[in-house]
């Protein structure tokens, strides 16, 4: 059943974000044409269009994630979602996984587009971009332990994935709580307030933990080791306390959302 939920979630998501990706492809195509034919005025316009659409991808994706969750569970479509023979946990998992996919895709699109613009801009001022990339790759390859570089990449990618999951869990919990009876009659306002309060409190807690709980991960050529000091010599130091905190809070948000769905949500 989870596979079927994911399939249908992806279809629904695609209908929400397809247009902005088509717009982005069109803007990039116009820019490529203008560069190929060296039409300066069209290059200027299409460059602005590409930047606007690239930011639009991120904004539309986030709106789509929020809107899809609220509409399919707590508005009329909720009458369908909650009468499917699946658990609230399965519904949440499928939605979270698909939201994660769309947000990650929007980040990659944003990085790709701005990377392309950066390449174009530096190329215009005479930078040898391709040569620089080749030098960077060869430098990495010559490092005494390339495994350490891979470890750094894995740790950083995991950190980004956790950040995205944390954001999704926070959004889902705020929306679910705003659909519990005391807040249900107001529109989006309770969800926005709950999200803002949670965001403020959790960011403060996370910063506090980073500053006062000196648990860290040291990545060096010898491998990964944990340290109980904030500063450690001989490698790249990453805070761990706030990561553990975010992981625990993410789990609590998902559990809390499922609990509210099972015990406190009455569809309007």
């Amino acid at each position: 059943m989870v596979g079927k939920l994911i399939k249908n979630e992806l279809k629904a998501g695609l209908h929400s974000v397809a247009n902005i990706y088509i717009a982005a492809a069109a803007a990039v195509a116009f820019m490529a044409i203008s560069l190929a034919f060296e039409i300066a005025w069209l290059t200027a316009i299409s460059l602005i269009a590409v930047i606007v659409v690239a930011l639009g991808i991120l904004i539309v994706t986030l709106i789509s994630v929020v809107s899809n969750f609220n509409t399919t569970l707590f508005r009329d479509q909720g009458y369908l979602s909650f009468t499917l023979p699946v658990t609230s946990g399965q519904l949440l998992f499928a939605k979270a996984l698909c939201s994660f996919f769309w947000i990650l895709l929007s980040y990659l699109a944003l990085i790709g587009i701005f990377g392309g613009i950066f390449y174009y801009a530096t190329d215009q001022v005479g930078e040898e971009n391709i040569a620089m990339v080749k030098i960077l790759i060869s430098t990495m390859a010559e490092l005494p332990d390339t495994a350490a570089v891979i470890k750094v990449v894995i740790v950083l990618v995991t950190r980004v994935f956790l950040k995205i999951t944390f954001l999704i869990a926070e959004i889902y919990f705020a929306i679910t709580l705003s659909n519990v009876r005391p807040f249900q009659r107001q529109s989006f306002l309770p969800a926005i307030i709950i999200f803002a309060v949670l965001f403020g409190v959790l960011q403060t807690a996370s910063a506090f933990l980073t500053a006062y709980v000196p648990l860290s991960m040291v990545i060096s050529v010898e491998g990964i080791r944990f340290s109980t000091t904030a500063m450690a010599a001989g490698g790249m130091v990453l805070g761990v306390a706030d990561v553990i905190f975010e992981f625990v809070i993410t789990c609590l948000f998902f559990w809390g959302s499922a609990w509210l769905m099972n015990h406190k949500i009455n569809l309007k």
Partner: protein
Amino acid sequence: MSKIIEVHGLQKSYGHNQVLRGLDLNYEQGQIIGLLGPNGCGKTSLIKILTGLIHDYEGTVLIDGKAPGIYTKSVTAYLPERTYLPEWMKAKDAIDYFQDFFADFDKVKAMDMLSRFRLDPNQKIKTMSKGMQEKLQLLIVMSRAAKLYCLDEPLGGVDPATRSAILDVIMNNYADKSTVLISTHLINDVERIFNSVLMIGEGRVKLDASIDEIRESGRSVEEIFKEVFSFGW
């Protein structure tokens, strides 16, 4: 015959407003039950509890011997009083969606009814009129071979000719030995199809009788309804 609906001491409140005050119901399989009562008497709340949409109630509710959950949702077909299909879907997408999730869904039957209702499988739900959307929902729900059908106001807001067509769809398509619970205000139009009538008011059962018992009294369902609720509720 096994019980499809068992309800004991069911109570439900919205804040200080108690809409169900200790309901007791028992229905065996193979009946068409008319759920009648004035506005706000708790008909929709009762249906939402039976279909697993409301969880914070007191009392015992069993569907086919099980508390509302995954199993009961797999054997209960629910038609709410509002349109619940995603607007981006085409009619055929909605049919595929139900086929994905319900093992008892009959796609051939759904496509057949779609053409008899003259609905285009490729038409987006967003572009359909409210009447077309209601027809699509009804045919999808009635394409399931469920043990229990819960139909909340299936005749609300449609013209008399469509009402008749909707009743025909319900009568011709519900699965053998299944039970159909129909909530409605339009007693005249539907009393011919009921086996049993359940009237609720003030959160309590006002009348729970078979249609034979009602006929023996020499009165119609509508006459009894007016008598039961003549002084308000």
